[in-house]
């Protein structure tokens, strides 16, 4: 099965929650992947323990952009304590693919950004 299936290509071409806000977020982070120069900035807005808004922006390969997009879509509306338990499996499930070690960093760059943002709270 190709890694570049329709869902991934759709989220790569039209990433959801793309574009950060000028309004102050509850938490934000910037992360990058030194192996390819990919960089992602993420913002989360929390109200009464729930993530009410999440957005990201940056540059990267199809896999990193699609995974960040899918993760944002999945995260929005969830309780912070639920989101804190997200791991690599969560992301791979959203992507519906098996990722080789060479692409794990691409697939998890959004998760890394989300975790870093939460860690600043």
């Amino acid at each position, binding site marked *: 099965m190709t*890694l570049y299936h329709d869902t991934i290509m759709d989220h790569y071409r039209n990433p959801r929650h793309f574009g950060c806000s000028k309004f102050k977020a509850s938490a934000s982070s910037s992360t990058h992947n030194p192996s390819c120069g990919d960089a992602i900035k993420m913002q989360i807005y929390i109200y009464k323990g729930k993530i009410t808004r999440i957005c990201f922006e940056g540059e990267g390969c199809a896999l990193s952009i699609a995974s960040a997009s899918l993760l944002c879509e999945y995260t929005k509306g969830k309780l912070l304590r639920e989101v804190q338990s997200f791991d690599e499996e969560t992301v791979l499930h959203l992507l519906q693919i098996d990722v080789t070690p060479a692409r794990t960093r691409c697939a998890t760059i959004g998760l890394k950004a989300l975790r870093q943002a939460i860690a600043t709270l």
Partner: protein
Amino acid sequence: MNTIRDRFPFFSHNPHVVYLDSAATTLKADVALQALNEYYTSYSVNIHRGMYPLAQKADLAYHASRKKIAHFLNAQTPDEIVFTKGATEGLNLLASSLGQSLINPERGVLTSVIEHHANFVPWQQIAKKHNAPFQVALINPLTMTVREICDEFEKNITQDTAILALTHISNVTGTVLPIQEIAHRARQINPHIIIVLDMCQSVQHMSIDVQQLDIDFAVFSGHKCFGPTGIGVLYGKKSRLDNLLPYQFGGDMIYEVGLSQSSFAEAPSKFEAGTPPIAQAISLASALEFVQEIISSDCHNNLKDLRAYCVKQFEKLFPNDVVVHQSKHLDSCAIVCFTVNRCHPHDVAHMLGEQNICIRAGHHCAQPLHKHLNIPSSCRVSLSVYNTTDDIDNLMQGITRVITQLS
């Protein structure tokens, strides 16, 4: 008719694979595999103190390999050849041992921005450990002339530059550095400078003469010249090796061991602690005989033509989509570094991989170079004797599909 491709059993297992990643590792030549198999199946015993005929056979084969490799590099004596796990171990050995005896807060190391991390990080870290200067020549392998490159090195060399560590061929762009000129100018400024050469990308492509290159040390890996993994060579001038401190301790590297003191064997044994990679050493010598054979044939010229064909096809078929990053003034050897506009290198390589076309993408263990060239990452096609114009045509068709899919 037998072709050079028939010398690589890989293709009978993978007839449809387009292998364009030989700078990462070459495929293995039949003679290297036969030597490996012969040792493991018919005389797989340990070398050194065995008094029985099979041990003597293994011992002779191991030492004959050292002799053949010395001959291949035109070293003065087999004692100038040290077997290591690979080029990385060789460079760490040098950084550690030369670092202990030669560098200090006044005397440091000079390397270049185009180095593979293996010839960069060990020097950076050892300089840090000894609080010594660590300088980086900011050469540009795409735009600079021979003269500009030599000038850039010269600018950084002083009487206090203890070590100059540089690569023969860039593993990213394929640019061939003018080693003899650089060495000559370095020694004019500082006759005591130690010159270390990373030959990982050159050994499979050219006749190497370490005496003519006028270097003190050189390293390469067996798996990048049609041989096995797990073995590399450290060449060192005899006088330099004699003065070098051992790097690891254990069996076979000692002369005499006492309760409180030990003395060490002569080079190269003092750098080969423990049971060495016997099978790999024997196999590597066969691989280098194969290299010798292809260098003296037309294959080398064919490879030059094939590289030129690859660049020409990129320019002809994708004038607005593909940027080839190659030297304007210096020779490039077997590597074509490129980026595809609006397509991430990881996606390009992965999509080609799904079409059975093997290339590499990323920083190729050369992050300082990518930062210097302001390219976050790149795609790399690396050719070898078994590649044909069909491989290049398949690559071009693959790139067309990638651009269609990603745009």
